[in-house]
């Protein structure tokens, strides 16, 4: 080794990054500040653990009485129905909406209202949309279906529009150059490039809808959520555990099904 390159003259391999360190310290300081604001104290945590133990003790064993199981089956079935219909509607509607919101295909006066509509669908949580629909169409499955449809449009529509904006325009131009009408440009130039991604977003949304359909019932929009909230409010904690286990089982089955579907398309 030449004498000029000894360890003393070499700069340190890892220089301290002061801005990052200050940011870390600020983050830690914020954590303590927020914890104090929100009254997150050790005492409350300890009493909470105590409460939690009693809560858990009341949950086991899960209630599997025949009438309860019937209630569970009815709620779950309705949840699954809500998820299926909302997914179908959402997927079908978000296809044209996504196309209209793509800035490389449409003029600005079409994309802006569409983008705003998608942003509006996206920014509210499903439960808040469900509340509004419960007021509009009354209690029951319809409100849940509409709420999840809106949420699906917000999610698939945005990602689909973004995916279209990333396509290569060469194929689109090639098809346009042959004098093809607008619909043919879409079906042969645009869709083949984005369809796989669209299917990906759609399957993700089906999964998400299934999870959320178990919850919109809490505000009266149909499905198992209503049963669950009622069980919680009546301190029926053993039935609550049955419902939770059933929901987790349904979601796991759906994930297994999705893996099979994904394999089919690989």
């Amino acid at each position: 080794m030449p004498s000029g390159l000894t360890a003393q003259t070499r700069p340190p391999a890892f220089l301290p990054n002061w801005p990052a360190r200050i940011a870390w310290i600020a983050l830690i300081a914020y954590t303590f500040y927020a914890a104090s604001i929100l009254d997150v104290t050790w005492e409350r945590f300890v009493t909470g653990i105590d409460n939690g133990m009693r809560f858990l003790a009341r949950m086991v064993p899960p209630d599997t009485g025949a009438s309860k199981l019937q209630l569970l089956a009815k709620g779950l079935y309705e949840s699954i129905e809500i998820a299926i219909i909302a997914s179908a509607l959402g997927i079908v509607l978000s296809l044209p909406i996504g196309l209209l919101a793509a800035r490389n295909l449409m003029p600005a006066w079409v994309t802006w209202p569409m983008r705003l509509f998608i942003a509006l669908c996206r920014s509210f949580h499903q439960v808040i949309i469900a509340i509004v629909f419960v007021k509009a169409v009354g209690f029951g499955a319809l409100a849940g279906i509409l709420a999840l449809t809106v949420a699906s449009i917000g999610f698939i529509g945005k990602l689909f529009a973004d995916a279209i904006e990333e396509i290569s325009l060469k194929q689109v131009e090639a098809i346009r150059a042959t004098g093809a009408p607008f619909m043919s440009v879409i079906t042969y130039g645009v869709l083949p490039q984005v369809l796989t991604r669209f299917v990906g977003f759609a399957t993700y949304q089906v999964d998400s809808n299934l999870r959320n359909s178990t919850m919109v019932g809490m505000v009266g929009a149909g499905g198992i959520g209503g049963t669950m909230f009622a069980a919680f409010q009546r301190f029926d904690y053993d039935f609550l555990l049955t419902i939770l286990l059933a929901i987790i089982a349904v979601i796991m089955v759906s994930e297994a099904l999705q893996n099979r579907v994904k394999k089919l398309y690989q």
Partner: protein
Amino acid sequence: MTVGNGIAREWQRYTRRERLGRFALYFGIVLACVASLRTVEIIPEFLYDAPEQVADLLRRMWPVEWHYYPKGVHEVLIETLHIATLGTILAILMALPLGVLAANNLTPSTTLNYFAKFLLVSSRSVNSLVWALLFVAIFGPGALAGTMAIAFRSIGFVGKLFSEALEETQPGPVEALRSCGASWLSVFIKGYWPQVEPAFWAIALFRWDISVRESAVLGLVGAGGIGMAIDSAMNLFQWQRVALMLVVIFVVVLLAEIVVTAIRKRII
């Protein structure tokens, strides 16, 4: 099947099994949709007067009660943001060790991997509102329950994506560090961390964005934040206040998205 005598060879893109599988899938989808549509309980009368009801709702919401903001919304809004942020920070703290345990290249034990993955999956399977219900039962109503609900729901999300990022790292720098006899911590901080840091921040910001949306509704089950104010305003039919809060949530969610995009551009 010969090409020479002029008989065209018939090409098929998929095997018979693949085609059958796809057909079964499409058939299943159609069947599920039809079955659901036929049995779902929808009261048509409710659907017919929906436009009237929506118009009525909008009329009740207008004019938005803007002057109520400093009195009853600002405080709960800040609380909501604290719940989302603190919940996400707690989740990241708990998700980091779980993510390391779930990554096969860092923890070469399949049992431990599966154990960590099971914990991550169960965290994700339970909805944040359900987590909030459980924590309200444990800690009582208030922001603590909301924070814990956000944290426990986020662990699965952050942990899963973080362990996937860890598994995609290049072994080169890690081996280089190991060959100089670096300790496990040094290998992690100087070998793995620089490779996953951009992904880590992207995950953290993405999750924070989602947490802001979710923390706005946790109050509906009593877990603090703006949701509690919405719930009480709705129970009292004060729709003008509800409208104000919806507008506030919309603005906050949009701002959160702008902030996240700006930070992402800077650090990733």
